[in-house]
C-alpha cells in the first residue's frame, strides 16, 4: 500500500473493500508513518476488527491475530517452552554435561511461538491484531507494554527478541472496561462509531452491489431508526450487509411491513429487542400492497 498521504491510504483501503472515514484513514496513515500501535474503540459491530484485516490486505502483509479472553496469559499469547521436547533432549543427551544441556534446552529451538512472538520474530512485516483487549486482565495489559513501545519481548533465559521488521499493531476494545493509562499512552486512539446514512449506504452497496439504490437507502434509514432505539444489541454494519443480501434473495422491491417482519431476525437478535423493534419501527412502515390472487 502506498503510504504517501492520507488520501492514498483511504483509497487503498477502499480497494480492498473497506470504506474508511477521515479519522480512520488518518490514523491508519499515522500508524504506518510513526510506527505506533493503534487502539480502536467503539460499539460492537462497527468494523474495528475489519479495519485490521483491511490494513493487512491493503499492505499485503500477513495478519497475525491474538484473540483476547479472560484468563489469557503469557504462555498462550507470547511464547512457551516446549517442555516435552526439552525432556526428550535431556534424556537423549546421555553423556553431555549439565552446562551444555542447560544452554541447549533454552535455545530458540525449544521455544513454541505464540501470536505476539510470531509477529515480532516474523521475517516479513506483519499486521498484528490484538482483538478485544478489554477482555483480558490488567496484568496482561502490563505485559504488553514492552511489546507496544519497543517492539521487543524479553525472555529471561534467552534475552531480548527485537522485531526485525516494524509490525502494524491494531488493538481493539469494546470499551467494556477502562484500559490503563500506560497502555493508552503508547497508542494512537481511534473511536469508530456507527456510520452516517451516506457512508453506510456506500458500504452496503459495496458489499451487495446488485441492491438498487432506493432500496439501499430505505434499508439504511430503517437500520438507523432501529439503532436509535434503546436496544440490548443494536444492529452492526455486518448485519446491515447481511440484511441487504437477504432482501436480494427474497427478491424484495421495497421494505414494507411484511418484508420487515419476515426478515427482522437478521438485524435484531434479542427477544425483548424484537418486540420493541416490531412495536416502534414495524408500524411506521407501509402495509404491504394487496397482492392479487
Amino acid at each position: 500500500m502506498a503510504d504517501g498521504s492520507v488520501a492514498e491510504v483511504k483509497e487503498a483501503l477502499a480497494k480492498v473493500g473497506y470504506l474508511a472515514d477521515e479519522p480512520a484513514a488518518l490514523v491508519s496513515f499515522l500508524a504506518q508513518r510513526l510506527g505506533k500501535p493503534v487502539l480502536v474503540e467503539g460499539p460492537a459491530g462497527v468494523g474495528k476488527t475489519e479495519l485490521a484485516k483491511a490494513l493487512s490486505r491493503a499492505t499485503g502483509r500477513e495478519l497475525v491475530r491474538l484473540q483476547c479472553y479472560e484468563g489469557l496469559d503469557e504462555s498462550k499469547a507470547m511464547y512457551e517452552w516446549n517442555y516435552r521436547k526439552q525432556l526428550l533432549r535431556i534424556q537423549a543427551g546421555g553423556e553431555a554435561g549439565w552446562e551444555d544441556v542447560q544452554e541447549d534446552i533454552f535455545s530458540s529451538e525449544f521455544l513454541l511461538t505464540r501470536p505476539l512472538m510470531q509477529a515480532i520474530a516474523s521475517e516479513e512485516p506483519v499486521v498484528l491484531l490484538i482483538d478485544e483487549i478489554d477482555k483480558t486482565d490488567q496484568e496482561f495489559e502490563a505485559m504488553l507494554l514492552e511489546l507496544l513501545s519497543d517492539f521487543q519481548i524479553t525472555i529471561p533465559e534467552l534475552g531480548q527478541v527485537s522485531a526485525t521488521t516494524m509490525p502494524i499493531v491494531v488493538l481493539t476494545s469494546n470499551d467494556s472496561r477502562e484500559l490503563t493509562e500506560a497502555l493508552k499512552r503508547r497508542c494512537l486512539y481511534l473511536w469508530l462509531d456507527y456510520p452516517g446514512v451516506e457512508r453506510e449506504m456506500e458500504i452496503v452497496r459495496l458489499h451487495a452491489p446488485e441492491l438498487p439504490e432506493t432500496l439501499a437507502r430505505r434499508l439504511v434509514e430503517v437500520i438507523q431508526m432501529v439503532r436509535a432505539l434503546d436496544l440490548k444489541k443494536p444492529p452492526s454494519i455486518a448485519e446491515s450487509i447481511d440484511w441487504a443480501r437477504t432482501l436480494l434473495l427474497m427478491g424484495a422491491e421495497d421494505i414494507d411491513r411484511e418484508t420487515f417482519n419476515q426478515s427482522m431476525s437478521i438485524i435484531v437478535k434479542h427477544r425483548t429487542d424484537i418486540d420493541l423493534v416490531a412495536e416502534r419501527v414495524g408500524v411506521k412502515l407501509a402495509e404491504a400492497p394487496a397482492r392479487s390472487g
Partner: protein
Amino acid sequence: MPPSPYGPQADPGPPGLAAKLLGFCEELRSEGVAVGTSEILDAFAALDEVSWTSHDDFREALAATIAKSQDDRRVFELLFDRYFFRAAEAEAVQRGVGEQSERAAAGEGGERLDIDQLREQIREAIAAGDEDRMRDLARLAIAAFGRAEGSGVVGVDVQRIRRTLGLSAGAQPPSEAGEERPPIDREQLNGFERHLRRELERDLIERTETLPPSRPLAELDRALPTSPTQDLAAVHRAVSQMKRRLATLGHEQRGRRKGRHVDVRRTMRASLETGGVPLRLRYRPKRPRRPEIYVLCDVSTSVTSASVFFLSVLHALHDSFRKLRSFVFIERISEVTEVFEHERDFAVVAQRISSEGGVADVSGYTDYGRVWLEFLTEISDELDPRSTVIVLGDARTNGREPHAEVFAQVAERAGRLFWLNPEPKLYWNYGDSVMAAYERFCDGAFECWTTRHLENFVNVVAGGTPTPEQS
C-alpha cells in the same frame, strides 16, 4: 503593583505553533485530560506527517495522539475550537486587524437582504451540511438584523436571530413552489447556531478589543450526550463493579478466627475418636455477609432530571443483587421490589412505577419526615446490622418537618446508611434542603448525578480511595 507574570487575558503568548500547541495541551490538562509528555511528543511527530492546510487532518492528528478516550475526545472537541479561535482572535486584536473598515467600504446596510431569500439559502446550506456556506450566511444574517437590535448577550442574540429567520427544527413548510423540503433535525440546526454564536463572539471581540476570560467547561457540557442506552450501560457497569466489591467485602470475614462459634454437636462427635475427650474443637462455618440492601429513591418533581438516573441505578442494582428491596417515595413510601423483579425492560419499569407507585398523596411534594415514619413503622423491623440502606434524594422537605430523630433511629438499626444526593454539594442546605440534619446520621453522603460520581461512591463504599473530584 508589578504586572502579572502571565500577562493580561488577551496576551497571545509567545509566537509560533509549538507554543500554541503547548498552551492547548495545558488547557486540556486543566480540564482533566491526562496529557503526558509522551503524548505531546507524539502529537508533534504526527503533525510532521499531515498537511496543516487541512483543518480536519490537523485536528484528527492531534486528537488521535492526545485524546485517548471518548470523554477526552469530547473535551478535546470543545476546547479545540475555542482555543484556536481565541488564539486567532487574540492575535488579531494585538495586530489591530479588523473587518469593520472593510464592511463599511462594502456599503453595509445599503442593500437590505430579503429575509425570505436568506432563509431559503440557510435552509439549503443546513440541509447540505455545508459548513463554509453556513458561516457566510451566519455573517450575512448578523449583518442584516443582528447589530442594530443586538442585546449584547450572545446567547440571547443567537435565539433572536434564529426566530427572526423563522428557522425551527422538525418538518419544514413546503417551499413557495410547493416542493417538499427535507426536515431539519435539532443537530443540524445546532450546527448553524454554532456558527451564529461564533460570528457574534468574533464581532463582540472586535468591537471591544478584548477577549472575554476563558472559563472552565461547565459540568453539563463535558458530560457525554445522554443517550439512554449509553447511560444505562455505564450505570450497569458501575453497579456490577459495586457488586464485586461488596461480595469480596463479605469474603474478608471468612477464616477470621475471632468471633467463631463452637459447634457443640460436631465437637462431641469428633471427641469420639479421642475417647470422649474433646481435644479438637469444631467450629460453626462462618457465613459470609450477604449484602442485603434497602434502596429508597425519591421520585418527586424536584429531582425529575435525576429520577431517570436513579431509576436506572435501581434497575442495575436489581440486576446484580438478589437480596435487594427497593422503595420509591414522594409523600409516602411504596415498595417497588416486585416491579423490578418481574420486568426486565427499563422503559416499562419506569412507566409502571409512575403509574402504580401510588406515592403522591395530595400535593406531590416530598415529605421526608413522613417517609421516615412510614419506613420505620413498616419496614425497619427487618433491618439488622448486616443491612445497608441507600437513600437517593435531594433532602428538600418543602418546609415540612424533617423528623431527623426518626431518621436517626433508622440509621441506628441499619448496619450502614448512605445518602446519594443529585445536587452539587454547593446547594446542600440552601433553601429547603435539610441535608445537614440527615448527614450526621449517615455513614456517608455523596453528591451523585453522573456515573463518575456513582463509581466514586462505589470506591468509597468498598473502602478504596475516592477518585479525585475534577472541577
